[in-house]
């Protein structure tokens, strides 16, 4: 029982997702290893500044809030890129990492961490983040040029090239790890597990410019994605410039994914399970699926990060472990029991 998407249904469903995200967004920063009083936070909001004694407000505004905004942006972006790559590759099992972006970023970061001579900072960027960003983008460019034919982009070549380059990057990471000294090994491992532990808003600024451009760019392709869901030829017959759409998706998705991964590490499974869940709840129409996946992906990562901060408090679990531990079994369940639906 599913009707064609009307403006009314679109707005209703989208508002529900907004509401859901909003609730998680305001509840989550109040929870943490240190209990904070809401009064002190209101006090800071009312007076417009945070006094030195108001420790609660410091924790709220400089530790938890930026972290939650990052979780929202990172989770939302990964889920949105997941949907976009699923549309591009016409494969519901595609993730933002299918084309090797995360592996490229991980290799870049590992090299950046291992070679001390490479360490520097450039504005708010750390060198590790820049190497991760560059690694991800180089891999996507490689995948694109390896699979591109004269006037079209064969999807199977794209996936095969992505998977192969991922594997090569994986081996190179092993090589870097083998050569690295133990304390550097710990840093590399910690980066690979993914985490949202930022303080203040400077780090957010390093991904904001990329996301401000790429997220709307991807969202605007939704109606065209509905067309290529029925094949490139069908879409072309309807007036879609298929190669352009593929390029936009590849570049937009790659830049968005690589910028997020460069800051938070390769957090897994969000890009796969969130779109699956939303497709089940709200249907496969990309005009609804894309914005809802963004909102739900953000909410999901905020939730996982809250668990990461509190489960073993005062110690913190890497959030990548939580998303994968929750996501892995969910995915297996989809694969094994829901294959006929």
């Amino acid at each position: 029982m599913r009707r064609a998407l009307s403006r009314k249904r679109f707005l209703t469903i989208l508002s529900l997702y907004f509401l859901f995200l909003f609730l998680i967004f305001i509840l989550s920063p109040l929870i943490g290893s240190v209990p904070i009083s809401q009064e002190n936070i209101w006090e800071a909001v009312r007076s417009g500044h945070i006094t030195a004694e108001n420790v609660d407000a410091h924790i709220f505004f400089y530790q938890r809030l930026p972290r939650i905004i990052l979780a929202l942006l990172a989770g939302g972006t990964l889920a949105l890129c997941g949907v976009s790559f699923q549309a591009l590759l016409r494969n519901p099992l595609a993730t933002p990492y299918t084309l090797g972006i995360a592996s490229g970023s991980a290799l870049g970061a590992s090299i950046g961490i291992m070679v001390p001579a490479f360490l520097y900072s450039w504005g708010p960027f750390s060198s590790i983040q820049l190497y991760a960003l560059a690694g991800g983008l180089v891999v996507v460019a490689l995948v694109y040029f390896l699979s591109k034919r004269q006037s079209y982009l064969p999807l199977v070549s794209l996936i095969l090239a992505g998977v192969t380059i991922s594997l090569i990057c994986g081996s190179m990471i092993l090589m870097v790890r083998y050569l690295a000294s133990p304390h550097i090994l710990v840093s590399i491992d910690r980066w690979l597990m993914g985490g949202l532990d930022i303080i203040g808003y400077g780090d957010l600024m390093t991904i904001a410019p990329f996301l401000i451009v790429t997220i709307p760019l991807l969202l605007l392709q939704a109606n065209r994605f509905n067309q290529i869901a029925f094949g490139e030829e069908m879409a072309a017959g309807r007036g879609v410039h298929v190669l352009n759409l593929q390029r936009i998706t590849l570049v937009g998705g790659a830049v968005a994914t690589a910028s997020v991964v460069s800051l938070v590490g390769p957090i897994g499974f969000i890009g796969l399970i969130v779109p699956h869940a939303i497709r089940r709840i709200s249907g496969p129409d990309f005009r609804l699926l894309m914005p809802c996946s963004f909102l739900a992906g953000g909410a999901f990562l905020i939730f996982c990060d809250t668990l990461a901060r509190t489960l073993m408090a005062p110690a913190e679990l890497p959030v990548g472990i939580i998303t994968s531990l929750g996501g892995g079994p969910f995915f297996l369940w989809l694969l094994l029991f829901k294959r006929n639906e």
Partner: protein
Amino acid sequence: MNDSLYLKADSISFSYPDNGFSIQNLSLEVRRGSVVGLIGPNGSGKSTFLKVLAGLISPSAGTVSLMAKDLRSVSRSEIARLMAYLPQKIPLSFGHSVEEIVSYGRFPYQGIFGFLAHQDNEVIDRCLQQTQVKQLRHKPVHQISGGEQQRVYLASILAQEPAVLLLDEPTSGLDLHHQTVFHELLRSLSRQGMAIVSVTHELNQAAHFCHEILLMDGGRCVARGRPQQIFTREILEPVYGERIHIGKLPVTGQVFILPKGRE
């Protein structure tokens, strides 16, 4: 008279860069209300020619004109409003419902978000009705039969409100009953004025439903004419080999083609 010439291909040639397969010097005129069948053995270039007609690949020589305008001078979305193309294979990946699929046919008329206006809904209803799939409108498309799916896809390209339909083996994989239902549907669309080009392997259906046949072999046009002119031993045997039998029904005069058994 020329007003009724909807689609015209003039000396079209094209070759694939990858494998060197080519079609050469193909011409075709499709008028209002006519059904043209493209027939020929596998690999004779029928689908390639259809893609050139649809504007999906541009010919290396020759021109295609749609409503007397060179296809190259018409924007993609304007082409899609005048001419609809149904590919041979349509992937099923994401579990859309019948109504959603038909609604996507309105794409060439939509803005960036593509919400449906009242008029769009009327067109969708009409197309669902025309193709007799209205009762299935809320079902996921992978839960209906192959014959129904094919009619749903036809409905979805009819929602483009085209004047010309290009169909690539629309009845392959359908049983005899559904083939006939589908072809009768095409016949009634053509009576309403639509011009239709259909690639097909169903020679008997083509003999019955097409006004004109273009027989292809090895990327070239072997013969062009009315079905009675084309379905003769002299013309078909060199293309399909000697093991076919061509006959005529005694009362209606309808042509039929059968495989010849070993003697």
